[in-house]
C-alpha cells in the first residue's frame, strides 16, 4: 500500500472558527457558518467563486434533521453551481477529501468547513446511536460511560493515574486562557480539579469535554497558488487516517494502533513497531490532539511516541471546546495557525471519530514547502 504522502505541495492558507459556546440560542447553522466562511475567504482575499472545490463535514443526528448540510451550504452560496461534497464525519475528513482532489491536480484551491450544534440534543442518548444497533445501542451506553471504561482500563494497566488526567485538564484550561474562541478556560490547579466529584469513575468533570456549539473553516491551496495567497503557508507533508473495529471488547482500549498507523501513513513514523530507535519518535514543535477525554491525550501521546519537547494542545484542545464534527478540523486549523504566524516550524494535527478513539486521522504540517510530484519545475 502506498503511503498517503502529498503528490503536490498542498497547504492550509487560511483558518477561521466561531466562538465555541455551550448554546447557540439565536443563530441557526447557516448563521453560525456565514461569518466563519466570510472570514476564512477574506483572510486570503478570495471569493467562493474562486474555490475549485467545497467540502463539508457534519452530522444530521446533532441537529435532529435529515440533510442538515443542505441548508448549511447556503452559508457559501452555491450559485452558480459548484463542485461540492459532504462527509457525515468530522470536517477533518472533508479536508482529506479536498486534499485528495488537490493532489490530483485539477484544482488549486478548496474550501472546507464544518459545523456542530450539540445543544439541541442529549448527547449521551444521541451518541449511543453510533453503536452497533443490534447488540450495543439497545443497552444505551453513553459516550461518558464508554470513555470511563477506557480510562479505567488505562488506570488498571498502570500507565496513568487520575492525577495524570487532572494534569492534562489543568494544562488545557491554562492554555485556553489565551484562546479567545475557547469555552472552558482558567488557571485551575490539578489539585483543585482532583477535588471534584466523579461523573463516571475514574472520570471527574474536568476529564470530560464540554458540550459545544461551533463551526470552523479552512482554505487549502496547492503549489504556487498557496505561496501567493499566504506568506507562510502551513504545508501538508502527509495525511492519513485509519479505523479500528467497532467491537470494544475486541480492542485493547489503552492503546491506539490506528493513530500510530495513520502517523506512519502521514510520514511521521517509520513503522508501526517504533523499532528504529528508542524514542521520542515524533518531535514537532506543536501537536494538536483531538482528545475529547483527558485520558485519551495520554493514549495518543504514547501511540505517536511524542517528544516531551512538543507543545501539546496550545489551543486548549477538545477539553476547552468540543464542537462535534468540528473539533478535529479545528485541530488542523489551530496547528496550521502556528505555522502561518511563524510561531512553529513543524506541527502535527490529529482528529478522532467514534467511541473510545475508534477512528483516527493524522496530519503532518511544516513551514518548509515539500517537493510534491508536481513541484516547481
Amino acid at each position, binding site marked *: 500500500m502506498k503511503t498517503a504522502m502529498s503528490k503536490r505541495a498542498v497547504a492550509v492558507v487560511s483558518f477561521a472558527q466561531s466562538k465555541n459556546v455551550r448554546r447557540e440560542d439565536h443563530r441557526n447553522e447557516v448563521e453560525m457558518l456565514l461569518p466563519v466562511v466570510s472570514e476564512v475567504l477574506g483572510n486570503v482575499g478570495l471569493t467562493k467563486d474562486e474555490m475549485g472545490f467545497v467540502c463539508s463535514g457534519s452530522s444530521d443526528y446533532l441537529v435532529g434533521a435529515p440533510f442538515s448540510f443542505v441548508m448549511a451550504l447556503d452559508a457559501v452560496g452555491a450559485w452558480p*453551481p459548484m463542485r461540492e461534497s459532504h462527509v457525515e464525519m468530522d470536517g477533518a475528513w472533508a479536508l482529506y477529501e479536498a486534499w485528495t482532489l488537490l493532489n490530483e491536480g485539477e484544482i488549486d484551491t478548496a474550501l472546507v468547513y464544518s459545523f456542530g450544534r450539540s445543544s439541541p440534543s442529549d448527547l449521551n442518548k444521541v451518541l449511543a446511536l453510533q453503536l452497533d444497533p443490534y447488540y450495543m445501542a439497545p443497552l444505551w451506553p453513553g459516550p461518558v460511560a464508554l470513555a470511563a471504561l477506557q480510562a479505567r482500563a488505562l488506570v488498571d494497566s498502570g500507565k496513568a493515574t487520575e492525577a495524570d488526567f487532572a494534569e492534562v485538564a489543568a494544562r488545557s484550561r491554562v492554555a485556553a486562557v489565551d484562546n479567545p474562541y475557547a469555552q472552558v478556560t482558567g488557571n485551575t490547579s490539578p489539585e483543585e480539579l482532583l477535588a471534584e466529584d466523579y461523573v463516571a469513575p475514574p472520570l471527574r468533570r474536568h476529564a470530560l469535554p464540554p458540550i459545544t456549539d461551533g463551526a470552523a473553516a479552512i482554505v487549502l491551496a496547492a503549489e504556487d497558488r498557496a505561496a501567493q495567497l499566504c506568506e507562510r503557508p502551513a504545508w501538508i507533508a502527509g495525511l492519513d487516517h485509519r479505523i479500528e473495529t467497532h467491537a470494544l471488547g475486541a480492542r485493547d482500549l489503552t492503546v491506539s494502533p490506528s493513530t500510530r498507523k495513520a502517523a506512519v*501513513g502521514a510520514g511521521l513514523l517509520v513503522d508501526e513497531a517504533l523499532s528504529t530507535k528508542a524514542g521520542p519518535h515524533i518531535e514537532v514543535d506543536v501537536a494538536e490532539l483531538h482528545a475529547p477525554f483527558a485520558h485519551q491525550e495520554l493514549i495518543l501521546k504514547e501511540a505517536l511516541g511524542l517528544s516531551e519537547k512538543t507543545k501539546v494542545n496550545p489551543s486548549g484542545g477538545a477539553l476547552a471546546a468540543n464542537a462535534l464534527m468540528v473539533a478535529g478540523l479545528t485541530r488542523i486549523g489551530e496547528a496550521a495557525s502556528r505555522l502561518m504566524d511563524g510561531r512553529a516550524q513543524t506541527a502535527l494535527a490529529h482528529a478522532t471519530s467514534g467511541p473510545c478513539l475508534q477512528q483516527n486521522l493524522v496530519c503532518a504540517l511544516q513551514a518548509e514547502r515539500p517537493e510534491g510530484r508536481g513541484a516547481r519545475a
Partner: protein
Amino acid sequence: MKERLAVVGVGQTKHASQRTDVSIAGLVREAAKRALEDAGMDWSDIDAVVIGKAPDMFEGVMMPELYLAPALGAVGKPMIRVHTAGSVGGSTAIVAAHLVASGTHEKVLTVAFEKQSDSDAMWALSVPQPFSPPLLAGAGGYFAPIIRAYMRRSGAPDHIGILVAVKDRKHALKNPYAHLHIEDISFEMVRDSMMLWDPIRYLETCPSSDGAAAMVLASERVAKSTVTGRPPAWVHGMAMRSEPTMFAGRDQVNPRAGIECAKDVFGQAGITDPRREIDVAEVYVPFSWYEPMWLENLGFAAEGEGWKLTDAGATSLDGGDIPWNASGGVLSSNPIGASGMLRFLEVALQVRGQAGEHQVDSVRRALGHAYGGGSQFFSMWVLGADKPD
C-alpha cells in the same frame, strides 16, 4: 497527473421491501463480497473503503460506518463516509474514484446501502424544524408540483409518465436483482393505480427498498493485470455539481447544476452528442416524469422535446436507440442511499458486457447519473469499454 482507473468488480444484493434475513452489516457485506469475488480479490487486497448512504435517520444509526468497519474489512484501513442526499450513491463512487485517480490508493472498495425497513423514510424526511414548513409528504409531495410545471411548460401529454413506469418495470423483469417484478405490468394497470401526489400515481413512484451496491475501483496497473477474464469498465469522466435548494429564479424543472454537471462529464469523455455517442444510460428516475425531464437536462433532447423520445420508445430496451434504465431503474429498486450507486454500477455491467438479460448490444460508452435534494445535487460518470486516451 490524473491516473486512469476502472471498475473491476461489481456486486449488489437482491433488493426487496424487507430484507429481514440480514442485518445492516449482512446486507452491505452481501454486496461487497460479490464485488470482491467479481474482481477476483479478497478483503485483504483492498486499500481503503468509501461508504455512502442517505440520512442516518433512515435506519436510526448515527454514522453507521463506525459499526460497519469490521463487516467491510476496513479495520486498519482508511474509511470515509459520504452523504450528499439522494445523489450519495453516485457521489460515494466518485469520492472513491478520486482516491485512485489521485494516486493515493490502487484498490478501493466502495459501498452504498439503505435498509429502509429498519425505519421510515417518510417520517425521517418530515421531522419538524423550527421556522421551516414541514414537508409531511415525503419526496413525492415535493416533486409533484415541479412535474406539473414541466407538463405545462413542455405541453407533454398526460400519458408520458405512464409509459416510463411501464417501460422500466418491463426492464426490471430482465434483472434478477430488481425489487419489483410485476409480471403483468400494463399501461392500464399504471393508469388505474391510485393517484398519490397528482400527477404522480402509485405505480409511477419508486418503491421503498432494502438493498446495497458495491464496486471495486482499481488503478490502470491493477485493472490491466486482472485475471478474472471480465474486462474492466474504464472511467472516462466524472463530475459533481451542487446548487442551493431555493431562491427566486432557480429553475427546478431544468436545474442549471444538472446541465453544467452533464457538460463537464461529457466534456471529459469527449462526447458532444450524448444521444448518438452514449449507448445506454442509467439515470436516476424516482418518479416516472423525471425521464423526459432529465432527457432534456442532460442534453439527450432539446428543451421541451424530451417527452417525444419517451413517447417514440427511444428509451426502451425493446428497439429504442438510447435505452434508459435497462435494469429497471429507481422505479423498480430504491434502496435510497444505494440507488445512485446502482446507476453507476449498472453502466459498469453494460460496458463490461455482464448485464445478462438486460444487456444492450455492443456498449462502448455509458452514462451513470444520480441526483438528490430538491434536484440540486448531481453526480455523473461516463464509463467506456476502451481505455481513455
